[in-house]
């Protein structure tokens, strides 16, 4: 007769303790992970290249025809294969900026035309980077607000049409800073 109330009493008595234990476990987990990986980078260099695209090619037809020649600077050679997917044939590097910040910190960069790019690297593990981006126009409107995960040795490309036949492209790269 007294077994069930006794069990109920024990459960009621120990449930908060179990919850507290789980809380402590969760709170201590990042510490233990950090201790196990002392060399894991905690800072990252965000490189933003601003590229102007021009000379539209109008080759939007499906079928994979041969793409016209793409003219781009040597500093953009690493992006050639990807920029070739855009309907432009000329790409000019406008500016390049780099900021080294710690993870989970937010920072902003001023871009040409008064635009701004706010970013926050969220994590960096196994060469994978999580990055929140907020690209705003001069009037404050959001050009792009996104959260992406990508390889740290690759660049995220995003762009918009800025003039009649021109586009503005941002090549954003996150480079881990090895302590």
């Amino acid at each position, binding site marked *: 007769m007294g077994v069930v109330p006794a069990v109920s009493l024990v459960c009621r008595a120990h*449930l*908060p303790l179990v919850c507290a234990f*789980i809380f402590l476990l*969760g*709170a201590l987990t990042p510490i233990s992970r950090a201790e196990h990986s002392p060399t894991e980078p905690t800072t990252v260099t965000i490189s933003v290249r601003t590229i102007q695209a021009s000379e539209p090619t109008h*080759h939007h037809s499906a079928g994979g025809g041969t793409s016209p020649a793409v003219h781009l600077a040597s500093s953009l050679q690493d992006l050639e294969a990807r920029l070739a997917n855009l309907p432009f044939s000329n790409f000019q590097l*406008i*500016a*390049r900026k780099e900021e080294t910040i710690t993870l989970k910190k937010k920072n902003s960069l001023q871009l040409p035309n008064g635009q701004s790019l706010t970013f926050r690297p969220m994590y960096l593990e196994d060469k994978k980077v999580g990055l929140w981006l907020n690209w705003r126009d001069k009037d404050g409107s959001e050009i792009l607000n996104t959260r992406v995960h990508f390889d740290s040795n690759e660049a995220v490309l995003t762009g918009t049409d800025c003039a009649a036949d021109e586009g503005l492209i941002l090549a954003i790269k996150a480079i881990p800073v090895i302590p």
Partner: protein
Amino acid sequence: MSNERQLNLSDKQEILLSQYFDGECGPIRRFLAQRLLSRNPDAARFLTSLGHTSTSIQSIQAGENSGVNLWSRIDARIEQERRSSFYLGERRTEEPRGSILERFIPSHALFGGLSGAAIAAIVLFVVYKPRNFITFSSPEPLAFTASHEFQPVGMGQANSAAHNRGIANSDTRRMEVDWMRSHGSLALIPDQNGSSAIIWVKRRQGWPAPSRMPSALQPVPLANATPTASFQMNREWLDQSGPGSAK
């Protein structure tokens, strides 16, 4: 009853002594009762009378009526009970108390524990899976074609619902998007191998396009399109951006 009426005790003192006699006092009231007993002989007399009353009632119940006229004492006792109920409410029997721990656990402990467990689960979820927290998962990755056509995935602010798109659903996947929001319409332009994509924002009508870049910000010639050359030519913008931010 008449004898008890002659006692120099207030109603509160009688109630206090009554509770003390019945063992219903807490530590403070027990201390007060004992202090009253030590200071006021009438209080001790009243307590003794209560004891006699109790003994007499027990004798009646046991059928050992000793011939004492108990009715006056019974009346006194009834009167005390009436006063007690008036001041203290109805007398009730307390349930046996459990352990000290149980006293500190309210009846909502189960609910509170479950809430704590839920919060703990959320915390653990955030700790172990920070990347996937507050994501809007889509079970299927966005399919890409080999063409160069823009593929709109959202139109404008109003319907710029979040997207969680794996750019390629394979081990070669190099880019994942949790969500995207834009004032314009969004398009993903995939790479030829489909492992990554370019996020393109197409401006809607009514969204003013940015002004053309000033002459000082015109692209540098291809031959000089190194970052250094670019910044040398764009001194005006460099000054606006602040020192040390560009390389």
